[in-house]
């Protein structure tokens, strides 16, 4: 114990050098802890986002990752669109016939079941139409099924909860086809609430604004998923914006709708040949049928099916994981550099301390004792630096916990630790031991006679 006190006194005696060295080590450790925390938060966020509640995302042929990014994360650009009839392949003949009656189109569409119906059994298919923006946030055209059937959360049992208002409906007396539901972050950032109206822009955030405004009827409670930063609008209203209808060739067979609701403004839903979907979120009744459906869709000429969980895992492994690993390696190097700083600081002080060491030896201290004092000094810097750095990092993370939860849905407490953090202390102690070896060896070799006479 008295060796530790001697080391502590030496630490205090050279306070400026000791504190600066400790700070550099603390910052290195803080960086590592923060990177590990970011690693954990990103992994958790990706993991949460992978809990999408549906097995497959179906879209046009192209990149499966791009399809996942734009349909699950509302990032990147949509690949292309699929004809609405592709979406109808997930429904039985009766539902298809009802669609024809409601929207207008070829009556033959309602005479057969969709080709994917046997695999859906008890599941659902929800269409998405993308391409418009509200500010920087994606506008997602969809149906009321999105809010009724989709679930999220770790157990995939949590329904969407409205913080304010209600979910959109396909047509209301009040707002016709132009209802919208905002993700929590969209509402917060754009300061919009129920009753407010907005125009979406076409193609990109700075694109031309559409003329017909949507009315906000609901705001989602935070879900910790990308849905928090999406603006959901009724797909019928989305179709009715200018330039959203697919041009007709004139060769289509269209029977006018017979069951479309009357709209006070005279709007009518687009006919089936005029409708397109960007992607379809599909959940099969039996999980094993997801694989069968995926294969069958991918064998088709027009569309592809991607499993979001697999694509997210690939994204993690291919891009995010290596990036975070690289970041971690860089910060670990920072720690090594800090440890070298400890070495340099203690080693440089050795010239001033040779006489002290010689005096200690003359008083009866053994070579091992003075060597131990130097190593303990290095350990003191390491323990104080690592502890300070750890608390600094966690305090910083905690300070931003609200923002992190808001952006990612991941809750971070001041003592939320990553499993890898427990390796930091032993690692820093090993680094300290390595950093202390050279000066300790110098202390060990100190010639008493020469230095006492100096």
């Amino acid at each position, binding site marked *: 114990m*008295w060796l530790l006190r001697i080391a502590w006194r*030496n630490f205090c005696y050279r306070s400026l050098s000791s504190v600066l060295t400790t700070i550099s080590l603390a910052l290195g450790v803080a960086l590592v802890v923060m990177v590990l925390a970011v690693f954990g938060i990103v992994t958790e966020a990706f993991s949460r986002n992978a809990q999408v509640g549906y097995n497959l995302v179906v879209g046009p042929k192209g990149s499966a990752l791009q399809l996942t990014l734009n349909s699950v994360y509302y990032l990147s650009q949509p690949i292309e669109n699929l004809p609405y009839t592709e979406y109808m392949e997930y429904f039985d003949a009766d539902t298809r016939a009802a669609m024809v009656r409601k929207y207008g189109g070829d009556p033959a569409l309602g005479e057969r079941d969709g080709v994917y119906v046997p695999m859906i059994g008890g599941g659902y298919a929800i269409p998405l139409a993308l391409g418009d923006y509200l500010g920087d946030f994606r506008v997602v055209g969809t149906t009321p099924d999105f809010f009724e059937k989709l679930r999220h959360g770790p157990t995939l049992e949590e329904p969407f909860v409205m913080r304010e208002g209600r979910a959109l409906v396909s047509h209301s007396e009040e707002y016709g086809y132009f209802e919208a539901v905002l993700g929590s972050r969209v509402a917060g950032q754009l300061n919009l609430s129920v009753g407010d109206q907005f125009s979406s822009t076409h193609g990109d955030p700075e694109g031309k604004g559409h003329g017909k405004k949507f009315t906000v009827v609901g705001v989602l409670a935070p879900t910790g998923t990308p849905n928090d930063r999406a603006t959901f609008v009724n797909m019928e209203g989305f179709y009715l914006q200018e330039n959203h209808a697919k041009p007709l060739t004139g060769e289509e067979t269209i029977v006018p709708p017979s069951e479309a609701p009357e709209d006070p403004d005279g709007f009518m839903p687009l006919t089936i040949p005029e409708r397109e979907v960007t992607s379809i979120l599909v959940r099969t009744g039996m999980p094993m049928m997801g694989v069968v459906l995926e294969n069958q869709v991918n064998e088709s000429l027009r569309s592809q099916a991607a499993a979001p969980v697999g694509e997210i895992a690939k994204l993690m492994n291919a891009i995010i994981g290596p990036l975070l690993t690289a970041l971690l390696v860089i910060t670990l190097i920072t720690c090594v550099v800090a440890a070298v700083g400890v070495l340099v600081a203690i080693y440089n002080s050795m010239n001033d301390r040779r006489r002290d060491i010689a*005096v*200690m030896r*003359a*008083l009866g201290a*053994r070579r091992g004792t003075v060597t131990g004092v130097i190593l303990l000094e290095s350990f003191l810097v390491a323990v104080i630096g690592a502890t300070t750095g750890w608390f600094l990092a966690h305090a910083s993370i905690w300070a931003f916990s609200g923002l992190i939860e808001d952006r990612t849905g991941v809750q971070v407490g001041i003592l939320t630790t990553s499993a890898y953090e427990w390796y930091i202390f032993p690692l820093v102690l090993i680094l300290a031991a390595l950093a202390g070896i050279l000066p300790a060896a110098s202390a060990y070799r100190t010639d008493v006679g020469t230095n006492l*006479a100096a």
Partner: protein
Amino acid sequence: MASWKLTPLLHGKLEAYPTAASLDPPDTDPTVTEPTTSNTSDVLKISDVIKTFDQPGGGKLTVLDIPDLTIRAGEQMALIGQSGGGKTTLLHLIAGLLTPDSGSIRVAGIELTKLSEQGRDRCRAATVGYVFQTFNLLPAFSAIENIQLGMAFGNRAIDTHRAYDLLGKVGLADRATYRPNQLSVGQQQRVAIARALAGKPKLLLADEPTANVDPASSDTVLDLIIGSCRDENIALMMVTHSMEVTKRFERVEHLDKLNRIFETI
């Protein structure tokens, strides 16, 4: 809890505090035993000691060739000699900080030349006190802590009461928590004396302890060293250049006469 600055390094808890010996691994050197003078009153006995140093250009330079030198328990001896004559080297040999090329050095009955370095460290800590010309107090520690360190390294339990008694004896009871740089030169030397006595040595080696203090302080320092050694029956070997200092000693040895190399010059 008091601050670090005001808390003696090893304050109290005498029973609980480990001794240096208890912290060290068992000494495997069979020649290292507890010092004893039971069969002899000689605290120091040097026989045919030769010490050489390597010369920069090659070859060896013999600095000491002492056939015989003995100091009895409680005896006080002044050692004088020309500068560079090997006085400090002789003290380092007696303290076990250097080893002779040949010959025998027995301190408190222990043959130093047969000990390992670790054994010499233990022997020095247990039997020898050392007062340096430049005091060599450890600057990071207070006056009382410097004294306690003398005990800690001396294979002894930390006797806080003795440390304060020694500090009182050298007239610095009110300077216990002062760092060396807060003490005058004379005060620093007095702390150094108290530190050298802390380990209850059999032999006190003093290397020109008055060389760096003013004449008034010099008398005080001499009184303390000589008086303390007499009170505690500690043999004293003091290197000095001062004839005034030698007048305080009954026995004065000239290294030039002890050292055979001067006979051949």
